[in-house]
């Protein structure tokens, strides 16, 4: 038992750095799912897309920050493609996301040229924080943490602007948002695009963190993100905007430590996905089990 803990403990900093980087995918899952009511699977393809674009840019000598921006843009476009397929052809959002993810696999392979590439010599964004007093992990934690804070604060500001409030209304009641004179499609394009951008952003940080890019790096990322989101929301709640925005980050930090603990305790890595799947089902099903008869305004008898 003690051994399990010491193994786990030794991995805490590495896991923390990883989880902060991956929390942007969780954010990319949360925004469509919770704010736009547009369940979306594009992350699974946008995340490796971000990794691929960033890696190729770095290899071509593009500075790290610019490479990340390129990755974000690519993810944004992937998101808008999903939104377009849904809005234009009335294909279900989930199917639209699966289609885009599937197509992106080929795209990512084309971008990379081969399934995986090491990135040892290129200057990565974390190298800017390579101070003697800062361990490599501490540098990653610091940078990813600050970026997370920046995203949360920016999004909080955005969602309290006129346009951001309109975007939230589109997710809440799109008929009403439209009847109030808003272009619903524009909000969806932008929101789903930014979500795709966040996932790609995460991928671009990840390849720089591990100095390695692999076309299969997105496999299962979505279900991990969903699990992390469930945990985060269980902790923060969802009734205020800031809580909803913080949930992906808090959830990601805790979720990946849990995974790390399970692995330290001897769970075979190959069994992780089924464990995660069962966990997500339990989290989603939990409330319906506890609360036998869901109370909902919509069905309630209207009274004063």
């Amino acid at each position, binding site marked *: 038992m003690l051994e399990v803990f010491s193994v786990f403990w030794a991995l805490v900093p590495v896991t923390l750095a990883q989880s902060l980087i991956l929390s942007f995918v969780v954010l990319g899952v949360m925004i469509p799912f919770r704010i736009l009511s547009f369940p979306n699977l594009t992350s699974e393809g946008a995340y490796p897309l971000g990794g691929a674009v960033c890696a190729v840019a770095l290899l071509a000598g593009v500075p790290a920050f610019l490479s990340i921006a390129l990755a974000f843009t690519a993810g944004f476009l992937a998101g808008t493609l999903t939104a377009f397929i849904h809005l234009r052809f009335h294909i279900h959002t989930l199917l639209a996301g699966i289609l885009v993810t599937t197509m992106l696999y080929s795209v990512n392979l084309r971008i990379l040229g081969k399934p995986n590439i090491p990135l040892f010599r290129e200057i990565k964004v974390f190298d800017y924080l390579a101070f003697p007093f800062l361990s490599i992990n501490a540098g990653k934690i610091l940078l990813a943490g600050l970026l997370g804070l920046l995203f949360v604060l920016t999004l909080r500001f955005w969602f*309290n*602007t*006129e*346009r*951001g*409030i*309109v975007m*939230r*209304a589109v997710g*809440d*009641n799109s*008929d*009403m*948002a*439209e*009847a*109030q*004179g*808003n*272009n*619903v499609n524009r909000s969806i394009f932008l929101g789903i695009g930014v979500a795709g951008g966040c996932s790609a952003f995460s991928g671009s940080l990840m390849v720089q963190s591990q100095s390695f890019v692999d076309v299969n790096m997105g496999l299962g990322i979505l279900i991990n993100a969903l699990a992390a989101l469930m945990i985060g929301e269980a902790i923060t709640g969802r*009734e205020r905007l800031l809580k909803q925005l913080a949930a992906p980050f808090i959830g990601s930090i805790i979720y990946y430590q849990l995974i790390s603990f399970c692995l330290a305790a001897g769970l075979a890595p190959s069994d992780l996905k089924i464990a995660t799947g069962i966990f997500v089902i339990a989290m989603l099903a939990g409330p319906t089990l506890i609360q036998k008869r869901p109370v909902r*305004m*919509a069905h*309630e008898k*209207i*009274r*004063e």
Partner: protein
Amino acid sequence: MLHILGAQKTFFSGKPDEKVALDGLNLTLDKGEFVVVIGSNGAGKSTLLNAISGSLMLDSGSIHIGGHDVTRVSVHQRARYVARVFQDPMKGTAAGMTVAENMLLAELRQSKARLRVGLTTKRRDWYREQLSYLKLGLEDRLDTRVSLLSGGQRQSLSLVMAVMDEPNILLLDEHTAALDPRTAALVLDATIRAVDIFKLTTLMVSHNMQHAVDYGTRILMLESGKVKFDIAGDDKVSVTISGLTDHFSVKTDRMLLGAEYA
């Protein structure tokens, strides 16, 4: 203010269950007119309102609002002329957002949403004032999520949101029918006051003949997608329920005489 010419709308055209909802309907409304629209179930009342708001496009015919041809204009572009309260209190508000945020959405109907802080102190004060006219205490609940309000409060909020920017045309489709009688009376009372204060050009669908007699400046009776009766001016002032019923039979209607329909 409103000009409808030869409005034609057929559902399932050419199929066995073809339904002619509007059949060459003509209607002209002057500014400030308050029309109560009555008619049996399926007469085309909702379709008429949907056509005016833009949520349904006409098969043929034209609609002008305030001199603008809006026949082919989408819902969100018509929103600056037309405000609407639905029968279902859930439809007119965003449940997961606060009262103030909902009011902001209504206010933005007249302008473009911009990249600047939405709920300024100035706006919140204005919303508080608008809500206080309702006398429902909503002015103290600006930051309450709408899902926590009762149906009547939600519908009252929808009403304030509809009238606060003095739209060219206000559409009310049985907006009190889903409420219990006491709340319905409250909301209706607020409606009458708002229409009166802002001199709004209004189309109100009602199943209650007493409403048609008591309120408004004009009664429009629809049947099979056409205007069957149009009573305005002195005729409207002197109209009685028995006078109305003399005009048409109501045996098979779900219209109730005098009693609240719920």
